């Protein structure tokens, strides 16, 4: 009885340790594998932020969004990251999707239609989506 109890205690301790270790070392999930909370076009996303930034922060920030639209520009890579700017109809502001350079195919060029998933972090000069992935 005592032996069985000790085995259970050891198993629980090992399990807790393993869980703690894996949780501590957990990395961010690949955005491509996550479901989007909402799907919308870039102009609607920008409009939501410019109309009521607080409401848009509450609705979108920290969530994976899927945006469908046209590429306005692909900026030169910096620090291994590439920004894909989506057309919003507003020349002063866009929706900027930040990709790891290695994740961005060559066919994503200005004028191309794209579907992108990314983590919304809010509005500065543009609405920013990070850790982006193309939706096939």
């Amino acid at each position, binding site marked *: 009885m005592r032996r069985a109890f000790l085995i259970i205690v050891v198993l629980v301790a090992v399990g807790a340790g393993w869980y703690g270790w894996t949780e501590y070392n957990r990395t961010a999930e690949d955005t491509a594998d996550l479901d989007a909370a909402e799907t919308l076009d870039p102009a609607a996303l920008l409009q939501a932020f*410019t109309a009521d930034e607080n409401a848009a922060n509450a609705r979108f920030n*920290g969530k994976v969004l899927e945006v469908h639209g046209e590429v306005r520009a692909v900026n030169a890579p*910096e*620090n291994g990251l590439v920004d894909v700017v989506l057309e919003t109809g507003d020349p*002063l*502001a866009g929706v900027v999707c930040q990709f790891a350079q290695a994740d961005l195919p060559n066919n994503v060029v200005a004028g191309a239609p794209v579907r992108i998933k990314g983590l919304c972090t*809010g509005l500065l000069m543009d609405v920013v989506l990070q850790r982006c992935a193309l939706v096939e």
Partner: protein
Amino acid sequence: MTKHLILAALFAAPLTLAAQERYATRTGHISFHSDTPMEKIEAHNHKSTSVLDASTGAVEFAVLMKGFEFDKALMQEHFNENYVESDKFPKAGFKGKFNGLTADDLKKAGTKEVTAEGEMSMHGVTKPVTIKGTFTMEPTGAVKASSTFTIKPEDYNITIPGMVRDNIAKEITIKVQMDYVKM
């Protein structure tokens, strides 16, 4: 609407002399670093913005708190949920002025040490700060600004729980790197 008016003022103003002295970036790199014997923590944000009016030295920086990326997801979650409360305070920023910086300085290749005086806002707290930095003007005309300084979390009402107090440095090192583009 206000946002658009500000952006219009920044980017679509007539080509006056002042407008020609304006520099900006949408891809500034801000990182913070905490180094203790217990743990080394760092996070990076490559989407900070800054606008500099070289004719007056006025400068603004802004950064989205949810844009800081950590190696470990758990740290990122704790940072956003428990420390900076980024749902409640989504942005941090600095607004101030570079002392001794002139528009001509940015047109000559070389480096210039500067001091920025202004107010830093984070976690709902705004405090006056003085920050030293360096401008580097490259022969290509590129203008880069960098700075390294420290802040204390408690100065911005960021409470570190006692259980992890020894894991987080008393002073957090902030590194800023801006590659400005002339507007």
